[in-house]
């Protein structure tokens, strides 16, 4: 009984603290993710005030948090949007993957880590944070901007790519080797394709089985279905997160709309628990040695991400300022990077410094990203662009120029 009391006190105090942190971050117009991570670091192993009784609670909560993050991500898109977007956005998605996954993977090898760690770190540096970026775009009043569809389609492709990447990583981390990884990938590709086809053809049937009218039944139904499918997917080595993502995609129409409203508060709660848990399991003493590498990695991949957005926007004929806005908006990495790092940590077979590096890396990009996104709105940046454009008009463009 005593343990239970301690659990209540610890969970309550931590959630209360998260509430205050969230309010603080809103005041500065920042994402609360870095503060949640820091709170986790402070109260975890080797932190200022380790919490012991509630660790199991946070572990389960974090699992649910990942699943809710992914099902909500799936609910945001309809299957038609995903597939319709695929053809036009595939080149941008390819540039994105090459420019951002390779530096991360290369960096891991440079540090002398094995190829599994390289695969994981590549994923961490690849995926931008849809949540943070969507919020930044709305905050800066850029939803109507003509480069915004470019940004969104890069995010859509990344999310789709994750549906293939996560099961692959899950299989590799489980140590099933190259053959196992190949089988897992085949199963994943097959499942994703089947779900997309079923969602496009029969999405309305699945949705009509869950009535949108009764909120309680809908909440329990969608949550139950998501956890069930996520669990089944995990038992097939396809990753619970992907199962949840596919459930989100399969639901459409009013059911998806109402489910989004009902699940949002739950997602906020459990996603916060997930970020805290990641911080809890990371030893803050591991951070100082990886601080410089993380900083270097952040600088390199923030530059490659900016280049990605710049090139993607140029492809569709957006002018110079819009290309910079698209590039700088894509910089923040967040929930997905932590999801990938979390998988690696849970598997336990990967380089131990990876968690600390991932946490530091996400902290850096998620804090500087929204600040960088504001750069193109400053008068001095616009002046710099004008003088740059004028200089380019006067001089012939050099043959070797990374941006042209």
């Amino acid at each position, binding site marked *: 009984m005593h343990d239970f009391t301690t659990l209540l006190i610890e969970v309550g105090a931590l959630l209360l603290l998260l509430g205050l942190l969230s309010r603080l971050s809103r005041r500065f117009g920042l994402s609360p993710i870095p503060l949640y991570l820091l709170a986790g670091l402070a109260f975890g192993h080797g932190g200022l005030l380790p919490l012991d009784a509630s660790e199991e609670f946070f572990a389960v909560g974090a699992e649910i948090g990942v699943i809710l993050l992914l099902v909500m991500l799936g609910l*945001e*898109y309809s299957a038609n*949007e*995903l597939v*319709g*977007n695929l053809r036009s956005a595939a080149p941008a998605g390819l540039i994105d993957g090459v420019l951002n996954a390779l530096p991360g993977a290369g960096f891991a090898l440079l540090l002398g880590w094995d190829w599994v760690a390289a695969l994981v770190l590549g994923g961490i540096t690849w995926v931008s944070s*849809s949540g943070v970026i*969507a919020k930044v775009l709305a905050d800066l*009043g*850029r*939803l*109507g*901007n*003509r*480069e*915004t*569809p470019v940004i*969104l*389609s890069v*995010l*859509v492709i990344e999310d789709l790519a994750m549906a293939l990447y996560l099961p692959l990583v899950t299989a590799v981390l489980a140590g099933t080797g190259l053959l196992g990884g190949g089988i897992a990938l085949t199963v994943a590709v097959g499942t994703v394709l089947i779900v997309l086809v079923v969602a496009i053809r029969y999405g309305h049937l699945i949705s009509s089985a869950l009535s949108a009218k009764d909120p309680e039944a809908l909440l329990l139904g969608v949550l139950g279905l998501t956890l069930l499918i996520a669990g089944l997917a995990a038992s097939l080595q396809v990753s619970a997160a992907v199962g949840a993502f596919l459930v989100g995609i399969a639901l459409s129409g009013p059911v998806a*709309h109402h489910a989004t409203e009902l699940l949002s508060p739950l997602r906020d709660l459990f996603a916060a628990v997930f970020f805290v848990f990641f911080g809890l399991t990371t030893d803050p003493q591991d951070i100082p040695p990886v601080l410089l590498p993380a900083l270097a990695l952040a600088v390199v991949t923030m530059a490659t991400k900016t280049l990605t957005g710049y090139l993607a926007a140029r492809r569709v004929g*957006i*002018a110079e*300022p*819009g290309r910079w*806005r698209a590039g700088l908006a894509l910089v923040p990495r967040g929930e997905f990077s932590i999801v990938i790092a979390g998988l690696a940590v849970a598997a336990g077979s990967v380089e131990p410094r990876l968690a600390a590096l991932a946490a530091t890396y996400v902290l850096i990009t998620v804090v500087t990203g929204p600040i960088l996104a504001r750069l193109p709105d400053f008068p001095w940046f616009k002046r710099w662009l004008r003088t740059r454009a004028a200089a380019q008009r006067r001089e012939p463009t050099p043959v070797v120029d990374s941006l042209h």
Partner: protein
Amino acid sequence: MRVRVEQTALPGIGVRHDLVTESGRRLGVVSHRNGRRDLVLYDPDDPDACQADIPLTDDEAEALADILGASLMLGQLSGLREQAAGLLTEQIAITAGSPYVNRKLGDTKARTRTSASIVAVLREGEVIVSPLPSFRFAAGDVVVVVGTRRGLDGVSAILADSDPDG
């Protein structure tokens, strides 16, 4: 002339419609999936960027649409008048002495006799659009007639007390 409205999907957010006005300004509407909509005005110096992003409530959007829609209809009416030279609109009051007070619109046979049409009736501040032949006139009604000068004069004469068939 038809205006070209471009529609762009915003995955995860909703859809954007935008158009370029004759004066060269680009403006658009972002319709969010959750029903919210923003009116956006693009920067003339940087046509990719929004200069203003104005969230509209349902009521505000409806009011704005009404204003723009109503002025559009008036514009179309006056355009119609210019296009069809010689076609006129007139408002004719039904006086208490008119033979058609308390009688049906169909009884006037106005269209057959004058080829002018009664397109609306104004009664106590309300507009009755396209009244049917079974519509009953009352003293004080004002009928809106569209036709040639001759036709309008004819309808005037019918509705006044000088109608030979009345």
